[in-house]
């Protein structure tokens, strides 16, 4: 255990130094992280205005709080390994990594965390600005803040592991980009980006609650803005745990089979 800790500390230092080289890049990521939520926030605000200030239980302030939280959660749970992994498999760069004593997953965990630490200081002021422009109205109580902590951790883990399940598909197909675009579009609808899940029309909402995508982005956002009751929050946590477990099992299975496939190609 202490060995793993030492390894992680060394990896952190190295990654952190590498990440600070590309500060402009992280500001660009910031734009992407902020613009889409603002686009839909603006549209919902206009719609709420047309309906006399509220849609369902959502006032304009609630929408603003939701989308501010969603931006934060989206950034914190961001996981992009599948894009890099496809290249590594195709160009054979994976082979030397597999020879190292450490599973490639560990490197990904560290670079993922470092990216978030580096970008967060830039994101927070932007979110404050948006919250202020749209007069966000947070109803968060102390217990919700407390529940948010395990919820966001589960969401980070879930999106990361799920991303790696998709990444591992690169062992079979080198056209991972098509799969990733599909994933992006499904998240677009079911992770709560176009609307808070409760505002989706009936069947879509049911589907949204059943699929894993909402538990990566919508769930922690809804808890953080103070929109979930205690029972709902507990159910959300349960669903997150279940989906994380399933994704982990899927990852272990896919990875094991994939590695066999990979060496069979002779890359």
């Amino acid at each position, binding site marked *: 255990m202490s060995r793993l800790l030492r390894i992680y500390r060394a990896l952190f230092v190295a990654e952190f130094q590498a990440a600070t080289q590309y500060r402009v890049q992280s500001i660009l990521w910031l734009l992407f992280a902020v*613009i889409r939520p*603002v686009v*839909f926030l603006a549209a919902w605000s206009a719609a709420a205005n*047309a309906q006399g200030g509220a849609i369902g239980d959502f006032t304009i302030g609630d929408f603003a709080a939701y989308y501010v939280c969603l931006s934060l959660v989206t950034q914190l749970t961001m996981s992009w390994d599948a894009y890099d992994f496809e290249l590594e498999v195709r160009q054979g760069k994976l082979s030397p990594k597999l020879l190292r004593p450490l599973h490639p997953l560990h490197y990904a965990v560290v670079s993922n965390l470092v990216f978030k630490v580096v970008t967060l200081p830039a994101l927070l002021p932007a979110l404050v600005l948006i919250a202020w*422009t749209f007069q966000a109205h947070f109803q968060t109580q102390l217990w919700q803040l407390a529940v948010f902590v395990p919820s966001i951790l589960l969401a980070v883990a879930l999106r990361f592991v799920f991303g790696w399940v998709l990444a591992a598909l690169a062992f079979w197909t080198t056209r991972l980009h*098509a799969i990733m*675009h599909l994933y992006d579009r499904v998240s677009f609808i079911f992770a709560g980006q*176009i609307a808070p899940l409760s505002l989706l*029309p009936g069947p879509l909402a049911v589907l949204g609650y059943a699929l894993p995508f909402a538990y990566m982005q919508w769930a922690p956002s809804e808890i953080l803005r103070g929109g979930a009751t205690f029972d709902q929050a507990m159910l959300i946590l349960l669903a997150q745990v279940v989906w994380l477990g399933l994704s982990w099992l899927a990852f272990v299975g896919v990875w094991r089979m994939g590695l066999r496939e990979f060496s069979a190609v002779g890359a």
Partner: protein
Amino acid sequence: MRYLRLLAVFARTELQLAAEYRANLVLDLCEEVIIVISSLGAVLILFTHTGVINGWTLAQMIVLLGVYYIIQGANSVLFETSFERFMEHVRLGTLDFIVIKPANSQFLVSARHVQVAQVGQIVLGVAMIGVGIAQIGEGVGVVQGLAFGVTLACGLGLVYCLLLVLSTLAFWFVRVENLLAIFWSFIDAGRFPVDVYPGWLRVTLSTVVPIGIAVTVPAQAIAGRLDAVGLVTMVAGTGLVWWFAGWFWKQGLRSYTGASA
């Protein structure tokens, strides 16, 4: 005329290239359909809760989304890959071979790599405009149609000019992909009328990154909400920007030193 023929030649060669990877081509087309349908779905979901957004009805919003995908599609078909290659040429010095060709270098750089597979977006965009207009019905007359055509051309021109100016900066700074990435991050905002956004974003989308007005104004023309002043401003503004982008390109080209320098 000659340039149209050149364009056809580019399209044909690029299509031949793309046809080597047929499964890829089919996947690309499927992707476009999924993207457009999910965007349309987002608008439909929004309109299950309200009948009107900032004065825009569902039919008018569908027209707007159609315009968005026409402009987005034109970008992907003509300019996106071409400008990416152009920046690569500047970096490697291989722009020499383009400059010495007996055709307008600005044209060659802007439209050399026609991505035929992306035409799907334009087709879907046109279809959406058709559906939207059918829903609006009688309100759309010849005048609105003409205004729509003119402003759509202006919108395409504006977005092209912005891309050209940003790419031209490569002559001095070499690595400007990041600037283009800023543009791509803003383009998402074109899917809704520019008037729903808060002040700072509305100003950005109307000036520095004109994707907002490029999409909104043609849709306004169809909705019959564009007055003569707006039309004239749009045409004059585009003319001015067009002239500036061309001038800027020439300045850039003049400072290009080539591979051996």
